[in-house]
């Protein structure tokens, strides 16, 4: 068995449990809320029309965006009400997925109740059933197969969409998929997808059994299906209640990471150091760039690595580019003042945005720096990562160099490098610490106008941990300890196509090298 597969398998049980717990709760809420609404909606078209319109509207929002929206929404709600609302992790994922589960449950519920034969309902009224008796004895039993078909649809959708919960810091099978995509570790991707598909198929199969039982009025089918569903849900809860906090009193810290290889590796390095110092650790990988900082400011994660230029433009909303030392000093003061966040210091390398081209192409066009690029851009295709084109740095670059590319497209980082390698992009927004720059023989273009700020990797610690001397002491040796060469090497170990290593393996190598 390959180490990557073994590692994915080792993570699988915890992720399956988290995944089932999340999607099971979401469907349960969807049913609890959706079914009564369907009953009201079936009787009253003043309720029905806006209800279905609302549920339909929710459905048109991509699941990824819906999940991401609940993070700031909960933050604002927490600030407005003064309540402590966990804005990251289970809660936003649960709300978004429950809303997602609502439409099929509502639509089928209403269709089921409206589809009942009028003669049967007239008979029910005529023999003197109350509305409640009619509902419980006639409408729900007769509508059950169609209602259940809606619940099946909701369950399958929810299990699929729950993989996206990873992006708001809730562990799910998406952890394997997202990290696998970023590091081109297809074994992880396939393991995650396969497990999610298997879960969906099993749950769908069991619900189909219940549905068939209701349709054919076969009690054993209904009971077997329901029993298996309840048993599997109970199993997902059990280890939670057994494992409890009582067994382990060591303090728990949460380490955040954004969605690329370097971040996974550095989070693993931090995790190794904290574990060695006697902390229990949890990971929140694949956080969006601004989500990560807000999560730290909100105390949802304790520590992560960010980059000075990113914080400068995204968090402080500044578009000037002061010298690195001045930027770091301002950041340290401002982040502390705003959110109590401790900027411990630089790790020692920079991961700057740098426009890069294949050496051959750059030499053929005579492009060495961004001034040269201004001239060549109209015949070139730009490949950017998913956020660069909306960032202040891009506006700064545009303000200084006025680049007018023939076309520009956004890629996830992995595919951006693929695009420059196969020629479908000529210029990409590479990362200077990326091992693939050397591996693909790319050249980074100089920035004579100093439009791009510095991107020193810095260690950020949440306010409540800033005073924990044991915690801070465990991480201090990392400051200034990671050179750009070593970081590139570690990144390449994960990103290359042959002899691939997992981020944890690369972290072990990086950690061992600098002790």
């Amino acid at each position: 068995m390959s180490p990557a597969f073994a590692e994915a398998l080792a993570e699988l049980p915890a992720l399956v449990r988290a995944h089932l717990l999340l999607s099971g709760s979401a469907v349960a809420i969807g049913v609890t809320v959706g079914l009564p609404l369907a009953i009201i909606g079936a009787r009253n078209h003043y309720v029905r029309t806006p209800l279905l319109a609302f549920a339909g509207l929710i459905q048109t929002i991509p699941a990824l965006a819906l999940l991401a929206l609940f993070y700031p929404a909960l933050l604002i709600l927490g600030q407005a009400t003064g309540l402590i609302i966990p804005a990251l992790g289970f809660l936003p994922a649960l709300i978004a997925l429950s809303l997602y589960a609502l439409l099929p449950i509502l639509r089928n519920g209403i269709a089921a109740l409206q589809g009942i034969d009028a003669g049967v309902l007239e008979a029910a009224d005529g023999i003197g059933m109350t509305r409640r008796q009619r509902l419980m004895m006639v409408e729900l039993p007769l509508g059950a197969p169609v209602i259940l078909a809606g619940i099946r649809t909701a369950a399958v959708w929810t299990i699929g969409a729950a993989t996206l919960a990873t992006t708001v810091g809730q562990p799910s099978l998406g952890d394997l998929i997202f990290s696998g995509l970023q590091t081109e570790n297809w074994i992880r991707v396939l393991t995650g997808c396969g497990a999610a598909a298997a879960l969906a198929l099993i749950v769908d199969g069991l619900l189909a059994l219940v549905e068939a039982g209701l349709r054919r009025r076969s009690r054993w089918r209904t009971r077997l299906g329901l029993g298996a569903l309840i048993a599997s849900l109970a199993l997902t809860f059990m280890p939670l209640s057994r494992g409890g906090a009582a067994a382990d009193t060591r303090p728990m810290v949460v380490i955040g990471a954004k969605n690329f290889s370097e971040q996974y590796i550095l989070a693993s390095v931090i995790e190794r150091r904290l574990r060695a110092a006697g902390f229990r650790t949890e990971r929140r990988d694949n956080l969006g760039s601004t989500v990560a900082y807000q999560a730290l400011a909100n105390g949802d994660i304790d520590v992560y690595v960010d980059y000075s230029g990113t914080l400068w433009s995204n968090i402080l909303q500044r578009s000037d580019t002061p010298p690195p030392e001045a930027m770091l000093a301002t950041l340290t003061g401002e982040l502390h003042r705003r959110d109590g966040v401790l900027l411990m210091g630089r790790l020692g390398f920079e991961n700057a945005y740098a426009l890069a081209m294949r050496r051959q192409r750059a030499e053929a066009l005579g492009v060495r720096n961004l001034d040269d690029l201004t001239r060549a851009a109209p015949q070139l295709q730009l490949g950017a990562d998913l956020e660069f084109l909306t960032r202040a740095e891009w506006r700064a670059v545009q303000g200084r160099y006025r680049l007018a590319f023939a076309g520009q497209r956004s890629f996830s980082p992995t595919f951006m490098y693929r695009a420059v390698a196969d020629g479908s992009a000529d210029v990409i927004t590479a990362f200077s610490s990326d091992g693939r720059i050397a591996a693909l023989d790319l050249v980074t273009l100089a920035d004579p106008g100093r439009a791009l700020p510095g991107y020193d990797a810095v260690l950020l610690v949440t306010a409540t941990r800033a005073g924990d001397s044991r915690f801070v002491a465990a991480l201090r040796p990392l400051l200034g300890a990671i050179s750009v060469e070593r970081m590139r090497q570690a990144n390449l170990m994960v990103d290359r196509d042959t002899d691939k290593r997992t981020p944890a393996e690369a972290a072990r190598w990086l950690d061992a090298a600098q002790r």
Partner: protein
Amino acid sequence: MTAVAIAGLTKRHGGRAALDDVSLTTEAGQFVALVGPSGSGKTTLLKSINRLVEPDEGTVALDGREVRDVPLAELRHGIGYVIQSIGLFPHMNVAENIGIVPKLMGQGIDRTAELLELVALPPEMATRFPRELSGGQAQRVGFARALAANPKLMLMDEPFGALDPVTRDSLGRSYRALHDRLGLTTLMVTHDIAEALLLADRIVVLIDGRIRADGTPAGLLVHTDPDVKAMVDVPRRQAERLASL
């Protein structure tokens, strides 16, 4: 004794009066047919009695008690109700369908066998589901369900309307026998004037929400109102044509 007393009943649908100041009393034990063309108000009149329709004006009293004063469930448990579409509950077997009203009333006695016998169905029907029954069998179960709680009054809306002519005739006669045997009061809506003439003691003709004629079958056959005359002429002419074949 007066079983049903209807006084000044008016029901408007939009601007149109489905019932226009209708008054009608029936004696206990009578079999009354309500006939008339579509939209004449006969079904509205019938449903005003068990309050599936609430009239705009007027009163309905059963055995001297106004239906408005009786709790709805109690009122309907006490009235047998049979409709053209039968409305058997498809997820319940025959015994469960028949037993539903006693169950709603909290009575636990199982009279399935007795009721099946009453409507001339074999006892092994008890465990069948509605989808396994013929139209005639299903309506017999419909009658058994309506009779399960020993009602004195039966309201029937086109009860034989969906059946083939042979079944229709035999079921009609079976029901008339039951009506006599159990001492029921029956109000039956039908648009089939021949059926009304052959089964009922009394025929009430409704046209445009008003009673146009009210009398025995024999009396109706010699009625002078041109609309009523046209109605009863149809089966008479059919009978004459059949006789001359």
